[in-house]
């Protein structure tokens, strides 16, 4: 698995450096310090880029499956699980570390401003941006961790759904049945992750997972149903899109 991570990290290191350089330039730019909206916008940009990076990685890996790139590991001494986990951890390492670096730089900039000019003004007006952590208590420093967990949850769910979908197709299931089965399995994942968050909340209250995201905090049956639909709709849309591409662009065997 470590071998897979090593080569997969090298594969994306250029993109990662470009995004980090963008982050630093962003930090060095001298924006008008009175336009608070810009700082709110920056926080949104960080979230969008991080989520975008995670989705980009998963789409690249799915597309690899339809190109000959899958052959790189085909006869390798690694098992398919090692390859899968290696790629999954690569994604988590890349977007997780990016989120932390971006958040650190963003907050450093805010901290400098906070120290020199806008004390209470900045602090009060950046309340609703998850990434502005200045002058707050310890728990709020965990926002990036929560954001990272939220993205990890989406990535893991998508990756598992895709993995299950591929396995089911290999076993000759109809693609629409596959979507339904994937959807149900992701619902189970959702239920289990909620349970895990609840357990974490009880056992490690100082980490304050209550902030993690509303979707992972819903424990009523009704909330479950609503949230399952909303969380999985993105995954199902993506999956349907991929299936469409697959049938349009790639011949596959329909016999055994």
């Amino acid at each position, binding site marked *: 698995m470590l*071998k*897979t991570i090593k*080569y997969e990290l*090298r*594969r994306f*290191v*250029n993109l990662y450096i470009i995004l980090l350089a963008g982050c630093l330039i962003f930090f060095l730019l001298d924006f008008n310090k009175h336009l608070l909206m810009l700082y709110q916008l920056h926080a949104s940009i960080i979230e969008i880029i991080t989520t975008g990076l995670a989705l980009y990685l998963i789409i690249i890996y799915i597309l690899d499956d339809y190109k*000959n*790139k899958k*052959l*790189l*590991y*085909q*006869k*390798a*001494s*690694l098992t398919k699980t090692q390859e899968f986990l290696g790629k999954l951890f690569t994604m988590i390492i890349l977007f997780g570390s990016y989120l932390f670096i971006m958040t650190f730089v963003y907050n450093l900039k805010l901290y400098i401003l906070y120290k020199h000019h806008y004390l209470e003004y900045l602090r009060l007006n950046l309340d609703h941006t998850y990434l502005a952590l200045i002058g707050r208590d310890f728990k709020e420093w965990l926002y990036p961790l929560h954001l990272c967990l939220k993205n990890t949850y989406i990535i893991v769910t998508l990756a598992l759904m895709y993995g299950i979908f591929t396995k089911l197709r*290999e076993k000759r299931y109809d693609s629409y049945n596959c979507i339904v089965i994937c959807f149900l399995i992701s619902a189970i994942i959702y239920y289990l992750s909620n349970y895990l968050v609840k357990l974490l909340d009880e056992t490690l209250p100082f980490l304050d997972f209550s902030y993690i995201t509303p979707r992972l905090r819903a424990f009523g049956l009704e909330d479950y149903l609503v949230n399952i639909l909303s969380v999985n709709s993105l995954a199902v849309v993506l999956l349907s899109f991929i299936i469409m591409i697959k049938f349009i662009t790639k*011949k*596959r*065997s*329909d*016999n*055994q």
Partner: protein
Amino acid sequence: MEIIKDTITFMYPNKLVFENVEIKINQGEIYLLIGRNGCGKSTLLRLLAKIEPYQFKLHLVNEKEISYMPSDLVYYSYMKIIDLLKFYDDTHHNFSLDFALKYLDEFKLNPKQKIKKLSMGEQKILNYLICLSKNAKLYLIDEPFPYVDLLNDEIFRNMIINRYDETKTFIIATHQINEFEKLASYCLLIKDYKTIECLSTDEIRSTVSLSVEDYFKEVMRYVKDD
């Protein structure tokens, strides 16, 4: 001894490729896989390599002991030649880096060159080098020769001779029959979706007094007219 004996039926959504075709491959032989464009040569190799979801019955050969050379090169865009070789050395237990480096030198390829900047011929050479650097029991080689110059052709053949022993089997799909005719002991001729004929190359030469290439042309002309 047979390593493969099976009857294949295989189709893509809109195309029947093989229907109840019998195939038998013996251990320790070099086979030429020939046939017209689109007749299923590459598909057959992919089936044997277990890339397509089809369960071939393999005897004496483990799935990891198959070395498959696809017709195009597989790599990540950041990779230099040496990176790709190290990747295979790291992830494929039967890959011999020394063997690869030795022949890399003979082919006069610079290990520090970026793969995406290689010419088509150089990419073929690298692909071929990776395939033969694995100590496998079954080598499946798809179109090794297009774009490659005459001197490198010679090295190619030497590589196969060096790798060959009686436990190893080679199946080479090619249109350049003359290049491999002397090397191969058998010829798998895909006539149509129902027939794969297996002929000994010596037999072709002695009984019909034709080279394999000429025999192939005659047979295909007959199949077309039929």
